[in-house]
């Protein structure tokens, strides 16, 4: 029996590949799949003092979706992330286009410069904006010492706009890479062909470059939209009470409030909402790109 397994292993490429993959998959199952399943189970349970009542109920979902404050937070989180995604992708596209089509020898340097922020401390990049926008912050103290204003501007920090600005900055690098990769992959002879056939630069961009780069745009949008809806650090530091997002109330359930099932239901509901919005967005973009061609 043992010998047969050994022989099968030697012979079968798929089996060897799967064996090599098994430790990674085991970790992913233990640290990703199992926790997710448990999160889903928790969302159907009830907190009972310090213990959890495992009688299945939809009560947590009723609270998550029924309470107006939570509903408002879902809408606001999705709205903020959608605006952030739009701004980030729009700003990143010309930048990625520049590196893909206009830079020749120094592509590597540009790409490193653009990706450094992606790898460095998210917490500190967000915190930098608190310093900049604060009541006694960089902008206010700068303008006052220049004599341009006499009172600090209070509308800068602690509102949804501050959250949008900070997130658009913090996630900028995420948009560049997918768009750059899809632009770089475009066969340059297609552009020449379009030019030879009489398309001007604008028409050529709209009919060849843009449609071919849409997979990168969609990828960038999803990669930004999905995680930012659940961002905790940014709304906590620069959002104030008007900029609270869904992650803040989820955190509360697991910390101060101690109602894990409700926190789990809020997390599941927000992932479902984000999933639906993402699915509709991708479908709409696909349809639009089919029409563009």
């Amino acid at each position, binding site marked *: 029996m043992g010998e047969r397994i050994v022989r099968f292993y030697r012979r079968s490429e798929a089996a060897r590949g799967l064996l090599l993959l098994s430790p990674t998959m085991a970790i992913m199952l233990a640290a990703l799949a199992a926790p997710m399943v448990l999160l889903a189970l928790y969302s159907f349970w009830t907190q009972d003092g310090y213990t959890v009542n495992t009688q299945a109920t939809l009560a947590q979902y009723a609270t998550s979706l029924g309470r107006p404050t939570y509903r408002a937070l879902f809408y606001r989180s999705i709205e903020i992330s959608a605006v952030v995604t739009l701004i980030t992708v729009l700003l990143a596209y010309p930048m990625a286009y520049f590196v893909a089509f206009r830079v020749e020898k120094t592509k590597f340097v540009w790409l490193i410069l653009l990706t450094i922020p992606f790898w460095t*401390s998210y917490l500190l990049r967000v915190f*930098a904006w608190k310093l900049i926008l604060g009541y006694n912050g960089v902008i206010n103290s700068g303008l006052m010492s220049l004599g341009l204003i006499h009172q600090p501007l209070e509308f800068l920090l602690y509102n949804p706009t501050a959250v949008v600005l900070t997130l658009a900055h913090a996630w900028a690098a995420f948009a560049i890479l997918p768009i750059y990769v899809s632009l770089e992959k475009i066969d340059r002879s297609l552009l020449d062909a379009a030019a030879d056939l009489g398309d001007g630069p604008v028409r050529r961009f709209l009919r060849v470059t843009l449609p071919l780069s849409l997979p990168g745009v969609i990828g960038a949008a999803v990669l930004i939209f999905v995680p930012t809806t659940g961002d905790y650090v940014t709304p906590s*530091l620069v959002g104030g009470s008007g900029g609270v997002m869904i992650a803040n109330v989820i955190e509360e359930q697991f910390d101060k409030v101690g109602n894990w099932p409700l926190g789990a239901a809020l997390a599941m509901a927000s992932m479902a909402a984000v999933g639906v919005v993402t699915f509709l967005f991708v479908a709409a973009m696909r349809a639009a790109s089919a029409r563009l061609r």
Partner: protein
Amino acid sequence: MKNRRGGLLLYAIFYLAFLYVPVAFLPLFSFNKSVFIAFPLSGFTTQWYAQMFDDADMLRALGNSLEVGAITATLSTVLGLLAAKALTRYRVPGATALLGFTSLPLFIPDIVLGISILILLNAVGVPLSLVTVIAGHCLICVPFAITVLMSRFDGFDKSLEEASLDLGEGGWMTFWRVTFPLALPGIVSSLLLTFIVSFDEFLIAYFLAGNEATLPIYIWGQLRFPEKLPAVLALGALILVASAVLVVIAEWVRSHGFKDRHRMIGA
């Protein structure tokens, strides 16, 4: 044509400024004498750096973060190496789905990853510690390790490994003498990048660390105290510079490799 290039270049420069200028205020004010983070600057000092290095809690958190980062980097790079080798060298059924599964953590908000692991640990009865932080960090680092290492494996010829096997070397010797040296730039790059991701990660560690603090958790705790901010800025400035230097090294190694070593093996 020339004009269009100029316009885009100008845009690119503004874009880089947008990325870097806000962050540059951290080091700028870390050298400012006043305890208030505000203009006008009131003179040069390094006292905040000295104050920071005198802080025992900070040093302990730094030690924790270095430990967690080093172990996470090693584990996730080994896991990434196995997965990358399997996905690029063998025809594995459902490879696309498996690769998609491993990159899933990139598409799930950190807060959800954090609370779901917290629930599991609680259900199984595992106490929170730096070990549980490492588990959480491996989850988000493995996708990066796989991506970096797969691009490295795709970049060199499978036939080199086959030649070694044909010439009679066993599987392990082939791995150590051919695969490993060729993949080494990818491995170094993966170690550095996963280390940085772990070292800088806040939210998952916040849920899983229990009573211990990593450096980002320590920083988070300091942000409430205005008088501590200058020292936090000094620490933040050092972290940003160190992270940036490691990224540059990692990316450099990844794309340029160790040329001499290649030649040695190619010969």
